[in-house]
């Protein structure tokens, strides 16, 4: 009787864990991941990280079309490395972090391009605006960790980031660089 109940528990556990191994969402390893934005002021590229973000990826290499990923980025964690700059970008003209503390990116599909490379489609929501993006992604698995990295350019004006008075000093195009690490599937 006792033995049978243990067996039953094990059987139940395997029912739960088996599907999980194939289609579970894996939380990102924030310590090994990075998301940064590179803006250009007076032709000078300035790269600064978002220090706080979270998210998860559900990706089966056999079924890329069913891949799903979502990320939440803490806009107030953007760190240019200078208190005055950091205070500036939190203002309503820029990120308006008081009103819009989070930016998010939710994918809706992943298309393989070349081996190890994909194109992710998704929606970037930032400062109350949502824009469809296509993001080139390179995937690499090493030492039990899969990293998805890439760069995508966005228009800061499309998200109403920065008032017009900055237009002749800060370029419209901002490059988002990301390196997202998750435990390798399987």
């Amino acid at each position, binding site marked *: 009787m006792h033995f049978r109940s243990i067996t039953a528990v094990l059987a139940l556990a395997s029912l739960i864990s088996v599907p999980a191994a194939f289609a579970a969402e894996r939380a990102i390893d924030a310590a090994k991941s990075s998301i940064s934005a590179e803006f250009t*002021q*007076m*032709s*000078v*590229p*300035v*790269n*600064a990280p978002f220090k706080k973000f979270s998210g998860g990826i559900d990706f089966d290499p056999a079924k890329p079309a069913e891949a799903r990923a979502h990320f939440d980025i803490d806009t107030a964690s953007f760190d*240019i*490395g*200078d208190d*005055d*700059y950091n205070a*500036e970008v939190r203002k309503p003209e820029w990120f308006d972090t008081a009103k819009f503390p989070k930016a998010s990116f939710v994918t809706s599909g992943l298309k393989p391009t070349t081996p190890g490379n994909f194109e992710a489609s998704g929606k970037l929501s930032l400062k109350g605006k949502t824009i469809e993006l296509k993001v080139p992604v390179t995937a690499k698995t090493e030492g039990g960790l899969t990293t998805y990295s890439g760069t995508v350019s966005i228009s800061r004006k499309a998200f109403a980031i920065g008032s017009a*008075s*900055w237009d*002749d*000093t*800060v370029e419209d195009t901002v490059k988002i660089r990301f390196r997202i690490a998750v435990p390798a599937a399987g």
Partner: protein
Amino acid sequence: MSDNKAYTRPAIALHWLMALMIIGGFAVGLYMTGLRLSPDKLKLYSWHKWSGITVLALALIRIGWRLSHPVPAPLPGQPLWQLRAAHYTHLALYVLILAIPLSGWLYSSASGYPVVYLGIKALRLPDLVAKDKELATALKQVHELLNWTMAALVTVHAAAALKHHLIDRDGTLRRMLPSR
């Protein structure tokens, strides 16, 4: 005094052009750091850096010119301490016209801002050091200290030139003037 005791025309041109750029760059530097963050502040920082890099380039040309074109000897009849003071002040000024722009460039690199000369992306200068907040703070102090040293030496340099011109009434300053 005879003409062969004067500085060469390129040496005179470089001296006054650099004097203007250094005084201008120093004034902009003092002014811009106190501004609150604005597009104008970013513009002034860029102009300050471009003028500093120009000074660095001119300093290299000037040192090259000086090494290949001997300067006139000091006018006779001066006490030894004055000759020595002039010699070491000039030497220190030559060191500073290299060290100040270099310290600014290092400070910009350490702060994470590459120097893009004249705002032309193809003229982006290499970063001399990687971004490092503590190093940037230290380099800022070095840049400021070197600048105040230069300001003090330039004051001595100009005061000495005026003393020669107005009190001694000798030809020392005239040798560096364009209108001879």
